[in-house]
């Protein structure tokens, strides 16, 4: 089922959480709402669910307006940030809850409920733990139970609020891949909120980058990463170096912009060389070299302005260069994206 959000605004007192946001989520896709805290992503998710009412604008599910329908009638599955499992119920009862509260004539029989719950338990690989209480589960297990509980009512839309936020790094990585595979299996239209760009890039079909209550950019992960529309998107999706003004670095100089411009360069797009091999390279001094796992991070200072710069080299390249602190080198941005100076990050 597709979701259409038409010009939605929402204020909390003086604070504008969403400013005229429009968005379409195609049927069957897995979409990430990505942004820093306070960007309005959770509010948007809650408005889609019907947990929050928009001040203005409409929500359509498959072209049918649902703006005023109650959360109970929307048939959305919602996975909460802290899971919101019912702690006095077993895993089984948690998952069965949505089925057992259905009106009597729609409610499946006991045997059917049991069958459905065990089908879901199998899906989340927790068949053994049906009789446990939430307090007896690990974070990752709770997360999966919350997901199964949301799926039990066969929702038309699955909404997840920071689904991996409370987990440690390793479990998070596993669950991400699992969610991706799960979505490929069941293909329910899904929207999840995250502040972690890696998570969005790895899991989502489409990414919607939000900032200060507005959508900065939407597109496939490759689109937003390779062609960021704004400086905000650029800097939110990875490490960045800024080249200010004209006459410092290559493309900024080349850019025929009448206004002062800023060049944005990713750390891994900076080449460090001993010899001047290209006219766009500039001189810099090595300040600090640090090996971080497979990468080597080099802090540099530009010779003319003294501005700080960070380059990420592969171990191989770094070993070959064998950089020493204090030595003078040439740096060359491989790829620069230019935005006019008055853009604010």
């Amino acid at each position: 089922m597709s979701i259409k959000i038409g010009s939605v605004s929402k204020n909390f007192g003086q604070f504008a959480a969403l400013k005229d946001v429009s968005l379409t989520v195609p049927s069957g896709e897995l979409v990430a709402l990505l942004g820093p805290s306070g960007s309005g992503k959770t509010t948007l998710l809650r408005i889609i669910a019907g947990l929050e009412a928009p001040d203005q604008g409409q929500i359509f599910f498959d072209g049918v307006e649902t703006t005023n329908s109650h959360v109970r009638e929307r048939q959305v599955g919602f996975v909460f940030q802290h899971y919101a499992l019912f702690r006095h119920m077993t895993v089984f009862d948690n998952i069965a809850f949505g089925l057992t509260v259905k009106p009597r004539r729609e409610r499946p029989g006991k045997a059917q409920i049991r069958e459905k719950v065990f089908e879901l338990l199998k899906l989340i690989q927790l068949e053994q733990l049906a009789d446990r209480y939430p307090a007896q589960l690990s974070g990752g297990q709770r997360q999966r139970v919350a997901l199964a509980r949301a799926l039990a009512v066969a929702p038309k839309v699955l909404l997840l609020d920071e689904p991996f936020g409370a987990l440690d790094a390793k479990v998070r990585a596993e669950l991400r891949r699992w969610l991706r595979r799960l979505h490929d299996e069941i293909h329910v239209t899904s929207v999840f909120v995250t502040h972690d760009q890696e998570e969005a890039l790895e899991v989502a079909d489409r990414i919607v980058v939000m900032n200060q209550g507005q959508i900065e950019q939407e597109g496939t992960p490759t689109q937003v990463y390779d062609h960021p529309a704004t400086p905000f998107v650029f800097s939110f999706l990875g490490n960045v170096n800024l080249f200010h003004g004209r006459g410092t670095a290559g493309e900024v100089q080349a850019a025929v912009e009448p206004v002062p411009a800023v060049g944005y360069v990713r750390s891994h797009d900076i080449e460090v060389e001993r010899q001047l091999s290209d006219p766009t390279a500039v001189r810099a001094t090595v300040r600090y070299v640090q090996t971080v796992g497979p990468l080597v991070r080099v802090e540099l200072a530009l010779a003319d302005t003294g501005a700080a710069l960070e380059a990420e080299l592969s171990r191989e390249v770094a070993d070959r260069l064998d950089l020493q602190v204090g030595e003078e080198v040439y740096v060359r941005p491989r790829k620069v994206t230019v935005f006019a100076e008055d853009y604010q990050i």
Partner: protein
Amino acid sequence: MHVAGGLKKTKSTKQGRGLGEPALVRWLLIAVTIGFLALFLLVPLAAVFSQALEKGWETYLAALHEPDTLAAIKLTLLTATISVPLNLVFGVVAAWGIAKFDFPGKSFLITLIDLPFSVSPVVSGLIYVLLFGLQGWLGPWLQAHDLKIIFAVPGIVLATIFVTFPFVARELIPLMEAQGREEEEAALTLGASGLQTFLRVTLPNIKWGILYGVILCNARAMGEFGAVSVVSGHVRGSTNTIPLQVEILYNEYNFAAAFAVASLLALLALVTLVVKTVAEWKVRQELANN
């Protein structure tokens, strides 16, 4: 009762729409609640003062100036002055030993400290009669040495200490447990002595909790009736506390005087509630600062 246990920082719950009750249900529930509380709490409270002043200010003041009443007030103040500090010291010491250290039998010890709360006041008085009364364990010895505890002031003080025994400890134990021992450990690593640590780190952290416990302890000490009634002997002007004086006046059908004296205790209760509310608020802050 004990604040610290349940009071963590209250989350501001953002209630979305459609999750509350319909307005009609809401107002109905509020109305029933206010009705219930007004009927059971406000009406009796108002009645105390209304009855006390029914015959005018002069009768009211005269009732309070009566020598037996003044003697009762004095005895009540004396009793509180002895029992509250003793239980305060106990409360702080016990809380230090229990909240800042781990040892087997800890929860059993806490249960024992709570015990006087669940014992009937009458039984609380009775046990001292059995110990110190004429037919009690120490009765003959006390009589031989011309010491009187039961039907005298010491008995009243002892019974009061018993019934107010848990108040301070009960407030401080959960509060100090919630605060942990990191700050004290930090003070020790910075070279503070044990006493300095207690006075300059622990005490400031629990001062409102202490006030909270003391104010409740004091209210009960001044207002205790059942236990004191058993050990007092009801001698006018000498072994009557304020609550006992109220009883005597009431049983003599001297209602105006009875309620006049009772109004003193009701005022004490109101002051207690105000101080308690403030202290509770501060205890929440003490916990939130962690």
